[in-house]
């Protein structure tokens, strides 16, 4: 990550395409259910008054297909929602784990409250000028605090600071590649 392509991340997560897909599927299945009821009612009425003929039989096939469509549509929505929920759980576990790792490191380095705040914002991708604005401090103060953070962490740049946390999350056995020593 370079200094220029790091963008601040918004704290709110937008509804992704997957939940929207589930919502769309639900609306579609609802419409299908209405069609199914109309067709079943129509077939029942035709059968009651006119008896079984080719037309009624054909309509009956359509009615059955529609009902089956609703059932399978519902099952598909269920699968989609389960997938979304699994992903959300995994994400929340991962973000919880990351927060824990970050907190542990900050404690170990003995960061002050201000330094921890600056460090966190840096990890989140905010620039010095933006951090200064958010904290109501001057850019030079932030720069000094950031330098102290780097010194306490034993790193030379934002990239190295980030890599500390990412490395911990990845685990050594996952990559099997040597990691550079921060010293």
């Amino acid at each position, binding site marked *: 990550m370079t200094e220029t392509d790091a963008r601040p991340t918004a704290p709110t997560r937008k509804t992704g395409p997957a*939940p929207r897909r589930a919502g769309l599927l639900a609306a579609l299945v609802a419409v299908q259910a209405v069609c199914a009821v*109309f067709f079943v009612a129509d077939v*029942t009425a035709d059968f009651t008054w006119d008896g079984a003929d080719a037309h009624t039989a054909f309509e009956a096939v359509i009615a059955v297909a529609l009902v089956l469509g609703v059932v399978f549509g519902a099952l598909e929505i269920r699968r989609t929602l389960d997938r979304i929920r699994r992903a959300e759980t995994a994400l929340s576990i991962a973000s919880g784990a990351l927060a824990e790792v970050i907190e542990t490191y900050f404690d170990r380095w003995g960061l002050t409250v201000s330094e921890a705040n600056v460090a966190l914002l840096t990890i989140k991708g905010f620039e010095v000028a933006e951090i200064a604005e958010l904290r109501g401090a001057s850019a030079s103060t932030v720069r000094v605090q950031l330098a102290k953070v780097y010194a306490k962490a034993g790193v030379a740049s934002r990239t190295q600071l980030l890599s500390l946390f990412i490395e911990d999350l990845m685990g050594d056995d996952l990559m099997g590649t040597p990691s550079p020593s921060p010293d």
Partner: protein
Amino acid sequence: MSQPSETLSGSAHPPSKGVKWDPVVRVTHWVIALSVLLNGLIIEEESQLHNWIGYVALAMLALRVLWGIVGTEEARFSSFPPSLSKALAYGKGLLRGEHPEQRSHNPIGVLMVYAMWGALAVVVATGIGLEVFHISELEDVHEVAANLLLLLAFGHICGVVLESRLSGVNLIRNMTFRRRSRGPE
């Protein structure tokens, strides 16, 4: 520009509380609500539109029943068996200021939801009996069940508002289609 969050893991918005209803529950809920409102209070009983809306309500009820069998965990019937004793205990707890986290409908809501589905089923069945099979004896049952359903719906709204106040969980927002900030649940 977003504000920095105070804690490491938390976003600026606290996670929403209460059950996050899935889209099938929401769609069926609101279409049924609209159907009951239209047919019960606005549309003329003799009109063809009244019948069509009745079929739409039947379709939504059928879909909800199907969803109660194959749907998400909180939407399945097995997650909310009706229990009078649990409802009483829950009501007493609410008055004492307790509001335990719910995985599905709360125990009082359970009774209400089954009562409304039952009433709706009777209204739809008698409506079909009247319109399709011309069984005029069903007229009174249809009328009484429909009024009961409207009464239950009114009670349901009062219950939701009251419980949202008591528990601090915005139950209405959990059923509408507005985007919620999603936190770990």
